[in-house]
């Protein structure tokens, strides 16, 4: 694939926009632009040109009328059929991971990670993979809206500027309420805004806040920062209610770091996770303890005491008597953890997601005691990914109520939905004369503001990001804006009276501010081009001034111990959880994420109240019973879900559901749990005392998996740490099965795959990546209930044991590409065959849909098109909408009804790599091809390659002692092998 720099095309488009040069106007596809079409939007042509690609090519009888329009002006950049790759930065959350996005025929269709990023090294997460679809979301605003009426930008700017400038002597504040802005150039623009409006304030808002962490670091080390955690430097990791592999702070980066230390040999990192609800992180820990949210603080204190006894001479005076009683439930575990931590001072890391300052201070002290500061906890080059200040938000609401705010701009935040005092916020909004939302749709907050000035989608936008100090990345548009939207930065500049286009502003900022600090970068032009091409740049910044730990940890301990001594007000506690699919709710209208089975519950299309098995049994609650959760401030009815591993007294509920203005796919899905917790002492809580009562009703869940036991079959195999070094007997010694068949003819390659069950965290980025790459349809909750989900790749979850010490396994499962495929012998029409290169092929246009192959597949990886899932109003998702179909990959057939489909090891990618090798007159090299799932994986668990090449990575992995095949005894001879999961109970 060609990796292009700041594409000429974007430059040309930018020039065209700037100069208004005329381009040819041809008709419009349905569903895109409305009136006011400007001839300069030439890229609309490119998106139209491939409406054809969105057609169901195999979809039976009549083809609907399409507007296929050839490009009148040939572009040297864009060759039909050849993808271009452009580096950009993800905007799906504030982690701002580096991306490389595949663009076909002028539109982005697939998001991939940027290998050049030192942070993520090419990994992505499920939400990031899915965010390409939100570009083509029908719910997006088509243009600005003033008081409910669509208007032009000139008009809305006039309204806004009038109102803003009218208050030049007005002491009332102009406030920008935004998500964490990691873009240094955007932050610089805010300064301009401040110049124009001296009463300007920027309030940062994070629904899952780390304000306490920042405050604790301010108290402890003198800087209110979120540290850059370095899991790759830790030999012992302790996570306290922090789902750092799933959704906490920077999960892609942390997963990569964590997996680097999870080697199969004796130096392997030891991971302990203490949490109330089962999370992705907890399901991968070596030791998992279930502790309730209210027990988190005392647990941290007890851990501090235990560590102090081991590492400090006096056991830290002030901690005497603060440890847990010897017979407390977790006392033995704490001793064990403390032993591990103490043995690896300087290589230990303790993180907590708690939003309580005292707990964070205790953990900060623990890290300091363990010598982690500067090693595993980097405060000098901190993370900039969470800067939300809960106290300021709470203040803001009060000020709005008092009438002290004259203008509020909401950018990337949705407080009416996700703030605990959402109702109060809504009321307060009415008291602000000018309210503006830069959101891309009429969301919950946008329904109550005067002006909607929709920002671009990040794939249409210029920008930059500094997720961690000194690590920069750039964002460039992959497509000219589909609708009449405008960059938020440009909007602010216009209103500040200094209209500049975003690109110019960005370039100037880099030239003025950043380029001088880039050592050895050469002249700016070259630096700019290279940076755009590469996407990421490391430019060391001055370290943040921090001092050694000096916080009042004793006060914090006292605080916690006092609080812990109070009896709980209710029998249960509610804990909020952020899940990999829903995140904080901003992607609720993305059907790929709604249909993504949660790695822990395996449910889709809705959230549940997770209850421990013992508690559920005692209450007579079974999965599916609708229960009412009542806290001091809110009430919610949700279906219950019996979750092994759930802490006994805690009920966990995923956030991000229950929206009512997200769009057709997201409205009314699940329940909104945000209003059930409150803001205490200026900090958002993630837990609250709750009562649980049954309603007597039942709800139908939409699970992708209903049975979690392996039934004694060794489907997920494990190996003890260090076992592969011994020459001892395998546990599973298989006799070589005789082969009754003649060997098939082999081609030049034998494509195969290795999946490392130890590295797989269950994050499900691969599932969404496969869906994006292969045009896998969304089927909706009703079809999922009927077990008709279409994902080619699934992550099975198996549980061993029950109760709180349950062990969880994630196993990615897709077509195993058996060389003795049971599906092939039974297909009557030869619609499934194995290629000479070992890929089990599905020939869509030959398949008549008898489904014998699916019945005979022991892995049950085949997916049948039960209905026409495309261009069918019964399934109103992206494949029915003309705009949504733009995300389809033109290299992959869209299957019609009645046809079987399954993983084909991204054969289109293999073909592309083969062609490129041919053109370059060289043989294919290992690593030329990365399947979509392999590319997306942040831990590198999936390795694809040529088994015919003994030197390829995959060959070596599958020749190792950890390798095995699932259901090997059946004699299917799959080309997909798994590496046994390593179990380690101790740290050496």
């Amino acid at each position, binding site marked *: 694939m060609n990796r292009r720099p700041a594409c000429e095309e974007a430059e040309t488009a930018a020039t065209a926009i700037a100069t208004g040069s005329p381009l040819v106007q041809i008709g419009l596809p349905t569903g895109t632009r409305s009136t006011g079409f400007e001839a300069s939007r030439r890229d609309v042509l490119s998106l139209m040109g491939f409406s054809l690609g969105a057609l169901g090519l195999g979809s039976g009888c009549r083809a609907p009328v399409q507007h296929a329009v050839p490009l009148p002006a040939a572009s040297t950049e864009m060759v039909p059929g050849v993808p271009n790759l452009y580096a950009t930065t993800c905007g799906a959350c504030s982690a701002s991971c580096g991306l490389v996005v595949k663009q076909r025929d002028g539109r982005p269709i697939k998001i991939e990670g940027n290998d050049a990023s030192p942070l993520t090294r090419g990994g992505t997460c499920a939400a990031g993979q899915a965010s390409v679809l939100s570009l083509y979301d029908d719910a997006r605003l088509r243009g600005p809206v003033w008081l409910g009426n669509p208007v032009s930008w000139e008009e809305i700017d006039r309204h806004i500027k009038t109102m803003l400038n009218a208050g030049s002597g007005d002491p009332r504040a102009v406030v920008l309420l935004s998500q964490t802005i990691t873009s240094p150039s955007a932050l610089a623009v805010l300064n301009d805004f401040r110049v124009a409006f001296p009463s300007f304030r920027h309030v940062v808002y994070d629904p899952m806040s780390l304000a306490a962490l920042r405050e604790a670091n301010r108290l402890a080390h003198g800087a209110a920062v979120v540290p850059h955690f370095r899991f790759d430097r830790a030999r012992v990791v302790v996570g306290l209610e922090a789902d750092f592999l799933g959704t906490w702070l920077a999960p892609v980066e942390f997963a990569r770091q964590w997996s680097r230390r999870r080697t199969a040999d004796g130096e392997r990192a030891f991971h302990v996770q203490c949490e109330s609800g089962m999370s992705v992180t907890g399901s991968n820990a070596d030791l998992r303890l279930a502790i309730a949210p209210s027990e988190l603080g005392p647990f941290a204190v007890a851990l501090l005491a235990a560590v102090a006894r081991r590492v400090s001479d006096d056991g830290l005076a002030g901690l005497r008597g603060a440890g847990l009683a010897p017979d407390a439930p977790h006392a033995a575990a704490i001793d064990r953890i403390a032993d591990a931590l103490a043995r690896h001072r300087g290589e230990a890391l303790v993180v907590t997601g708690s939003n309580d300052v005292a707990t964070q201070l205790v953990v900060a002290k623990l890290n300091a005691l363990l010598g982690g500061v500067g090693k595993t906890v980097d405060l000098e080059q901190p993370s900039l990914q969470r800067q939300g200040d809960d106290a300021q938000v709470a203040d803001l609401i009060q000020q709005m109520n008092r009438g002290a705010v004259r203008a509020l701009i909401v950018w990337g935040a949705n407080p009416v939905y996700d703030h605990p005092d959402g109702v109060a916020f809504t009321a307060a909004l009415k008291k602000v004369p000018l309210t503006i939302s830069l959101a891309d749709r009429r969301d919950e907050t946008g329904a109550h503001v005067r002006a909607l000035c929709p920002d671009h989608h990040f794939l249409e936008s210029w920008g930059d990001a500094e997720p961690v100090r000194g690590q920069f990345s750039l964002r460039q548009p992959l497509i000219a804006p589909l609708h009449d939207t405008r960059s938020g930065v440009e909007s602010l500049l216009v209103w500040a009276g200094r209209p500049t286009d975003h690109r110019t502003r960005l370039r100037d900022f880099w030239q003025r501010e950043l380029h001088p600090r880039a050592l050895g970068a050469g002249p700016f032009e070259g630096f700019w081009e290279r940076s755009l091409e590469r996407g990421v740049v490391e430019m060391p910044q001055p370290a943040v001034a921090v001092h050694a730990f000096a916080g009042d940890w004793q006060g914090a301990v006292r605080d916690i111990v006092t609080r812990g001594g109070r009896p709980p007000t209710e029998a249960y506690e509610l804990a909020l959880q952020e899940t990999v699919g829903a995140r904080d709710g901003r992607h609720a209208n993305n059907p790929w994420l709604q249909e993504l089975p949660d790695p822990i519950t395996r449910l889709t299309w809705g959230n549940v109240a997770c209850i421990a098995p013992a508690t559920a049994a005692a209450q007579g609650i079974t999965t599916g019973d609708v229960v009412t959760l009542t806290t001091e401030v809110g009430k919610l009815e949700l279906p219950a879900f019996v979750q092994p591993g759930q802490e006994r007294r805690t009920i966990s509920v995923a956030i991000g559901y229950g929206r009512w203005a997200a769009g057709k796919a997201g409205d009314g899905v699940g329940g909104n749990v945000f209003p059930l917790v409150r803001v205490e002492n200026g900090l958002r809580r993630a837990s609250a005392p709750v009562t649980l009562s049954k309603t007597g009703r039942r709800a139908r869940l939409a699970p992708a998996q209903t049975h979690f036991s392996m039934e004694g*079959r060794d489907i997920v195999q494990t190996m003890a740490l260090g076992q592969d070094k011994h020459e001892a007997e395998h546990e599973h010694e298989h006799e070589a099965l005789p082969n009754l068949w003649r060997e098939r003819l082999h081609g030049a390659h034998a494509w195969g795959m290795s999946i490392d069950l130890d590295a797989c965290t269950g994050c499900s980025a691969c599932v969404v990546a496969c869906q994006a790459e292969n045009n896998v349809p969304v089927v909706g909750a009703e079809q999922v209930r009927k*077990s008709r989900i279409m994902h080619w790749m699934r992550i099975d979850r198996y549980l061993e044991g029950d109760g709180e010490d349950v062990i969880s396994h994630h196993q990615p499962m897709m077509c195993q590409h058996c060389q003795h495929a049971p599906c092939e012998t039974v297909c009557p029409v030869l619609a499934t065959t194995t290629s000479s290169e070992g890929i089990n092929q599905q020939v869509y246009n030959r398949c008549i849909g008898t489904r014998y192959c*699916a019945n005979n597949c022991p892995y049950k990886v085949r997916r049948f098109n039960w209905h026409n899932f495309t261009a069918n109003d019964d399934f109103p998702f992206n494949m029915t909408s003309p705009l949504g179909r733009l995300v389809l990959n033109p290299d992959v057939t869209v299957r019609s009804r009645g046809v079987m489909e399954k993983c084909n090891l991204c054969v289109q990618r293999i073909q592309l790599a083969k062609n490129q090798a041919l053109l370059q007159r060289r043989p294919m090299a290992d690593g030329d091809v990365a399947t979509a799932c392999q590319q997306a994986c942040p831990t590198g668990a999936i390795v694809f390659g040529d088994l015919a090449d003994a030197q390829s990575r995959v060959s070596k992995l599958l020749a190792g002692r950890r390798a095995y095949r699932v259901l090997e005894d059946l004699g299917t001879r799959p080309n997909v092998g798994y590496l046994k999961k390593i179990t380690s109970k101790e740290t050496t």
Partner: protein
Amino acid sequence: MSAGDIPITTSPAVAPTDLVQPTRWIEGSPSLHRITTDIAQPMEARPGRGWWICFGIASAALLNLLGMVTYLFAKGIGIWGLNNAVGWAFDITNFVFWIGIGHAGTLISAILLLFRQKWRTSINRSAEAMTIFAVMCAGLFPLIHMGRPWDCFFIFPYFPNQRGPLWVNFRSPLVWDVFAISTYFTISLVFWFMGMIPDLATLRDRAVGGIKKFIFRILSMGWNGSQRTWSRYEIVSLVLAALATPLVLSVHSIVSTDFATSLVPGWHTTIFPPYFVAGAIYSGFGMVLTLLLITRVTMNLQRYITFNHLEAMAKVILLTGSLVGYAYATEFFNAWYSGNVHERFHFINRATGPYAWCFYLMVLCNVLTPQVFWWKRARRSIPVLFVASILINVGMWFERFVIIVVGLHRNFLPSAWGMFYPTVFDIGILIGVFGLFFTLFLLFIRALPMIAMWEIKGVSHD
């Protein structure tokens, strides 16, 4: 033996002297003319109210079938309850069920002919007709169960073609089904038609004119009843019977390989071919009994279909039912003896899982019900025979359902376990196909001689 009306007696006990004398299969000794008129009577008289009521119900079900199949083609297989775990349920259950039912006809026509069982003569015509109609009903399912039925011709090895040329996959049991069922249908049709020619000639001669005479003249193909014709005809019948005989064993064996050649636990077993054949004969005789018990009364054919015939059929049912029961026991034993964890689990799941009620119903109907026929009084009791015949077919339908759905819904990877719940379309099509079958059968008994006149005449004066 004098000609004339002889009142029909109730079932006499079979005297021990019958061991020496051949059994009298026809009650009284009706004259040849009497035989003709008795059998031709339904075709020449107007149908009674009972026929109309039955025909109305059957036609309604048939119309329902047509409507639902149209909707199925329009909307897709998704209107059924099938899913990723269970790819076949009612569709293939019905297919195997109807093919199985057809086997009785072929056995009665062909095998009993070769074994010179004279009692077959009263029932063979309608049994053959039942086979034809059952195969038609069965053949509907491979067509409608396809995801893309408009491409169904892909499954036929037509040559040359412009797709390669491309053959079909001869290793697939579904292709074997194509050959087996088309062969079965063809031979059954030919055999049935050939067997009717003398009777069609009789009807031609009886017809007074108009369209009826024209049709029967065409169909009887110039039959002149001469000695030479008759002798050639008997040879042809024997040849056709010899051709049709292996089909009784082969067709359902091949259908069973749809399951036996797969690797699904509960399917993957060599016992299936003989087990299915026994089951097919069992269910076929059940259906024959159901049909004949009703029609012999409604068409006044008790003289020709006597208790001796019914008792003979009951004995076949007892034999084949016991074979089926033995096969069940063997399956369970093999599953345990094999030690194969998947096989063992499948059978435990059969008996204790979510579909256990289907399993117990199946055992009740297939294993326990036929055992009642050890008692002669049961063999010669109309109510017992009728209830048993219904239960037999219920049981055999559930047997196929249990094999298919229980085998599929839980097998190797527990993460892929699922459930099948029938939708209104599954059930509607099941009922609708019965409508098709009974519509055809009801039309048959009014349009064609449901008992082989010429064969009866051959045995009525022994």
